[in-house]
């Protein structure tokens, strides 16, 4: 008896469903960043708004990478529903705290898929995920660095204005 499921798709249905969950997560992240950009813009933090616009764009690119990978491997990519996006924040700092939480949750989720791939010996998907693991190093670094600015500059006086000015300059240039 032929292995018809394998003929049709390189990835297992479990991996396919995990990747679809990740597609949804990336779409959600993109929308959250967009809402953060809106909040920052409304409250006069224009540089941070630009930073979050860029982040939203990046998350969308990640979503499409997963989306196309699933299709290329013979699976079914599901265009996700995105609902329940928080629109209001209590403070400038809270925005960055939630941005870091968001990135940590994405890293964990990619680690979970990687663990499942190891169990199934799906080396192809593992290799695909390597790019994302490296990307998460940068994403978490940037989010953490932004929060550090609140510590080193301080929010008093013109502090928030200074922080906003420097958020756009955050770069990750690791040789490692």
């Amino acid at each position: 008896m032929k292995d018809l499921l394998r003929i049709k798709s390189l990835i297992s249905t479990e991996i396919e469903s995990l990747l679809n969950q990740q597609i949804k997560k990336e779409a959600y992240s993109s929308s959250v960043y967009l809402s953060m950009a809106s909040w920052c813009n409304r409250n006069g933090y224009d540089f941070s708004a630009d930073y979050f616009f860029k982040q939203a764009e990046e998350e969308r690119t990640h979503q499409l990478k997963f989306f196309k990978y699933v299709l290329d491997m013979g699976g079914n990519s599901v265009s996700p529903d995105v609902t329940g996006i928080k629109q209001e924040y209590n403070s400038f700092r809270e925005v960055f705290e939630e941005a870091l939480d968001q990135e940590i949750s994405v890293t964990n989720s990619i680690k979970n898929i990687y663990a499942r791939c190891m169990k199934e010996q799906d080396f192809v998907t593992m290799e695909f995920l390597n790019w994302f693991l490296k990307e998460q190093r940068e994403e978490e670094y940037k989010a953490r660095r932004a929060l550090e600015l609140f510590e080193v500059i301080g929010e008093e006086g013109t502090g928030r204005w200074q922080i906003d000015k420097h958020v756009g300059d955050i770069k990750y240039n690791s040789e490692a």
Partner: protein
Amino acid sequence: MIATLTQTTPWTDVFKTTKGAVYQSDEERCWYVDFAGKVAKFDHRCLLKLRKAVYHIDIEQALLNTTKDPDVEIIFICACDHCYVLTLVQIIALKELLEGTFVMLELNHILHDKLYA
């Protein structure tokens, strides 16, 4: 619309229960599901959609439901010729049949991996 299909190519048994059976046709690259009085042909996508549809029915909820509506579920799969109208008992039987089928397909996959890799 739904005609009972007759066998034209060799079929391999995948899984059987007292209520139904699933066969695979290597030549046509599809499966035949013999259940609820008809034999229906499913390709790869449709079989996965059927599984998803059946697994998503909350059997416990339907059993606890005390409304006077009949305990009937309509399983309609988009872009597939077949539709099932099943009672709860039949749904449980179909779920058992599909679970067994996918375990057998998984086993077949493992055997292929070990024998031909």
